[in-house]
């Protein structure tokens, strides 16, 4: 009896291509096998699957709703999807289901899990994860799957031991290596030319396209440099109205910036590339996105690459993919960022000059390129499709469980997949030296994420970005923070001042810093005033005498502020800043009976500091200390049993080691 195999997964070409590649290998392994693909009627699979000669059965599905309004359509399509998937499973009765993830796979995976739970079917499920980080649907599917094949050794950690198999990413046989000289002849490229091949996937990538257009003049200034640019075009016959049209965009940009380049023969632009293999073979350097498909093709072709991962994807999976290659020395990563100087403009970009500089640096060092190419080829998994067929055979009971040699996994950067709160936590553990300091690559990713926060249209994210910039010591952001300290959003002003405090007194020229703090102390929002005062307390090292006097006067006035937080901060700042006993002594004296004990307790510190700095006489300070109201407020309870437990734990652990 011929084997029936149901393929599913999609939404983007990145999920469909490996399914089709695996189908090729499966067809070779089981020549009589019958294939069918369950997918959406208007996504990548709708065009790619029929072209591969596999019939497509329609299901309904939809990505997780981002907002409340999406819940009903989501529930509707989930229901319809399940019904259609049940129909397919009952009629087609597959012997094996091969799912490559993406929300398109959800109905079939779920329906199969239900049928198996009800003992109505026994169809095994083989899941393949393309990226270095498990996708959301695959994380779910892994619970009901019989075997989960992964493309990166790094992903094995995220899966239960017995279920995971490393196979690599199956690249389609249409993309095998071809001869470089032949490819150059076919594409009419001179033999000694240095060719850069940039593409953002079949649909094009805005950030990449614009960066390449910006970089083009600098690149083409070198006489033997050629640039081939796959700009991309929208998918399907009737693309959505707001779909990104890559080729059009590139032409428009060139027309606006550099008309001469439009007719430059060394800058070739195409909207769609059929014969990727020839272009790969002809190129010396590839610029691409970090989808698993693109990267694995680059590896299969053994090409050095500059990779621009798409930011803010679930779990940062493109960044993870890119970093796996970069750690192996196969590529260089450039992070796209939002522009913090224009918050709310939600188009991340990569500066063209950086891209051009990096490309020229790499092309000028052929030895480096060769090393990168070798490292890339080393990462390729040419037998991935065959391994997948082995996995399928094992699940169909026709072979042993495949044992594939796993390349040594690298640890991921700690910043990966973190949201703002996670980054704050990480930075706090790093600054408190509970964790090792950030590596250079981690820091670069972190700073790009901070830029994304600072450039966000959401004020809450901007505020977070300000705080993080301070925690991370992101000096280059000082100018942005200075601007944010004067926005209309009170919370952002507060956090910008906090961020500047984190950067320290070297962040800005002293006079400018003093001016910002002066404005901050007069802010309408009490928390901003308090932060400004605390910042004065810490960053006053280089202020000119005039500024010191002016700030001292302001702070003395703030000792009468209605908010106790401001009074407290002002007292602390006066202790560090004041150079003369007046008007400080009077201002502090007015707080000796402050209703909030925290303010009074700040007074003690201030008096001690003022005395040590010789601003007020010890006798006067002593008299002041004696006259401050002390009540039983502010004592701390001691948690003895927990204390003892922690102590015992420490002693026991010492023995354990």
């Amino acid at each position, binding site marked *: 009896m011929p084997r029936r195999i149901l393929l599913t997964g999609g939404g983007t070409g990145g999920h469909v291509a490996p399914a089709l590649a695996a189908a090729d290998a499966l067809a070779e392994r089981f020549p009589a096998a019958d294939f069918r693909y369950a997918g959406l009627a208007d996504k990548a699979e709708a065009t790619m699957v029929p072209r591969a000669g596999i019939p497509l059965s329609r299901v309904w599905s939809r990505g997780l709703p981002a907002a409340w309004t999406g819940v009903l359509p989501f529930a509707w399509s989930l229901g319809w999807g399940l019904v259609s998937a049940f129909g397919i499973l009952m009629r087609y009765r597959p012997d094996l289901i091969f799912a490559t993830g993406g929300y398109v796979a959800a109905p079939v995976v779920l329906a199969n899990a239900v049928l198996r739970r009800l003992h109505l079917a026994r169809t095994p499920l083989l899941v393949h994860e393309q990226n270095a980080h498990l996708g959301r649907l695959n994380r779910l599917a892994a619970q009901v799957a019989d075997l989960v094949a992964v493309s990166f050794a790094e992903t094995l950690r995220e899966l239960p031991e017995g279920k995971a198999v490393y196979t690599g990413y199956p690249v389609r046989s249409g993309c095998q290596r071809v001869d470089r000289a032949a490819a150059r002849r076919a594409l009419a490229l001179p033999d000694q030319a240095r060719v850069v091949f940039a593409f953002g996937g079949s649909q094009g990538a805005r950030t990449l396209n614009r960066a390449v257009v910006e970089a083009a003049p600098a690149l083409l200034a070198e006489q033997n440099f050629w640039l081939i640019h796959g700009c991309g075009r929208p998918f399907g016959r009737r693309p959505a109205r707001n779909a990104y049209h890559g080729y059009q965009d590139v032409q428009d940009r060139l027309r606006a910036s550099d008309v001469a380049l439009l007719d430059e023969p060394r800058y070739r632009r195409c909207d769609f590339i059929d014969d990727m293999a020839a272009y790969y073979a002809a190129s010396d350097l590839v610029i691409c996105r970090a989808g698993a498909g693109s990267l694995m093709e680059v590896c299969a072709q053994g090409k050095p690459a500059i990779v621009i991962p798409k930011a803010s994807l679930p779990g940062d999976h493109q960044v993870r993919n890119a970093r796996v290659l970069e750690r192996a020395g196969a590529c260089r990563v450039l992070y796209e960022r939002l522009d913090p100087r224009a918050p709310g403009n939600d188009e991340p970009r990569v500066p063209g000059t950086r891209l051009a500089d990096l490309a020229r640096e790499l092309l000028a060092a052929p030895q480096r390129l060769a090393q990168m190419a070798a490292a890339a080829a080393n990462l390729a998994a040419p037998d991935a499709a065959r391994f997948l067929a082995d996995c399928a055979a094992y699940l169909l009971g026709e072979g042993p469980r495949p044992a594939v040699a796993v390349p040594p996994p690298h640890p991921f950067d700690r910043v990966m997949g973190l949201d703002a709160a996670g980054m704050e936590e990480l930075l706090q553990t790093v600054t408190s030296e509970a964790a090792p300091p950030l590596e250079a690559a981690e820091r670069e990713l972190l700073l790009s994420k901070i830029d994304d926060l600072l450039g966000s249209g959401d004020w809450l994210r901007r505020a977070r970005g300000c705080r993080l910039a301070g925690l991370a010591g992101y000096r280059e952001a000082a100018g942005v923070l200075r601007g944010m300290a004067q926005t209309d959003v009170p*919370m952002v002003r507060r956090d910008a001042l906090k961020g500047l405090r984190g950067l320290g007194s070297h962040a800005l020229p002293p006079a400018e810093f003093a001016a910002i703090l002066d404005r901050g102390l007069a802010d309408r929002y009490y928390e901003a005033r308090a932060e400004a005062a605390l910042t004065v307390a810490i960053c006053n090292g280089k202020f000119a005498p005039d500024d010191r006097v002016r700030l001292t006067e302001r702070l003395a006035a703030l000792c009468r502020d209605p908010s106790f937080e401001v009074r407290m901060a002002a007292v602390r700042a006066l202790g560090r800043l004041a150079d003369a006993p007046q008007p400080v002594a009077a201002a502090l004296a007015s707080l000796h009976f402050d209703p909030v004990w925290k303010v009074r307790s700040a007074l003690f510190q201030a008096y001690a500091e003022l005395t040590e700095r010789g601003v007020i006489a010890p006798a006067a300070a002593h008299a002041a200390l004696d006259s401050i109201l002390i009540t039983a407020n502010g004592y701390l309870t001691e948690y003895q049993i927990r204390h003892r437990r922690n102590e015992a734990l420490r002693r026991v652990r010492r023995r354990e080691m």
Partner: protein
Amino acid sequence: MLYFLMRALEEVGGPAVFRYVTSRSALAFITGFVCVLIVGRPLINWLYRRGYRSFERTYGDINTTAKTGTPIMGGLLMALGGLGAAFLWCDLTNPFVWMLFAAAVYFAGFGLLDDWLKIRHRNPDRGLSRPVKLASQILFGLGLGLFLAWPDITPFPHQVGTQLQIPFLKGAALDLRFGILAWSAFYIAYHVNAVNITDGMDGLATVPAILVFAVVATFAYIAGNVQLSAHYLYAFIPRSSEITVFCAAIIGAGLGFLWYVCHPASVFLGDTGSLFIGGVLGTAALMIRQELVCLIAGLVFMLELLSTFVQEQIGFRLLQRRILPRAPLHHALQHRGMAESKIVVRFWIVSLICAAFAITTIKFR
């Protein structure tokens, strides 16, 4: 249950005191208190062993780490004690008692689910989602609204079920008609959330809740008594005095719970407890038709909810700034440096004054 037994004994010459609401209330109070005291220690130990413990959660600079590991779901204790005592001493054929039991089981159930999810995910933010909680409260409120307004099922006399009594004005009442559905949904959601938010410190929610229950019990006794309701010019609601017995059982259980929860607490209410208290409180207040008086008695709850609302909706969402130093109110005071025990006792004082004031509305009209 014992109520039926005693009534049966009465037939054959037993004492007649168990017929009276007052005596049964006293017995229910004592039973509830003793039940919780007895069950308390073993239940707390059981909760701890099962790993039903609180997790660390930081509110800005307010550190609650020291309390990490205290068992939650203590509401279970209060619910078991209170419902047990009510089961023993209430007239179980009474529709008001059914409704109170329904509210208690419904909200304690949702609370348990919420606590359990939090423990399972090891994350205090991963319980039931806000919309789900709110939907469950509104659903119950709508059901209760039907109980009040639907002529075929309501035990209320004509129009009483839909009338909103205005305190301080003699005989003044607003007939909401079917608006009672919306009002009851809002009122239940208000009480559940208010108690839930207030429950942030040792004993902070328990004592104010006990006091409001006492006010409810008083009004239920008046409304269910022909002579008293006529004397004080309240609408007479037949059989509603049974609510007094139920409230007394909960008050007893609440005091028993206070035994364990007073600072420093051996157990926390958890969502089980706060949803249970809020749900039952709102239901009882709606059923004696004294919603506004109960709002006065529970002023502490109102302030807590209001402070959160002002901070989150007006402050963060609208003005993009903090209005209060922290929210809810007790955290604002804690942020100022006030000690927890001090805040708790001061809140008790305020709610005692409010409860007393609510009682005076019987006369001051």
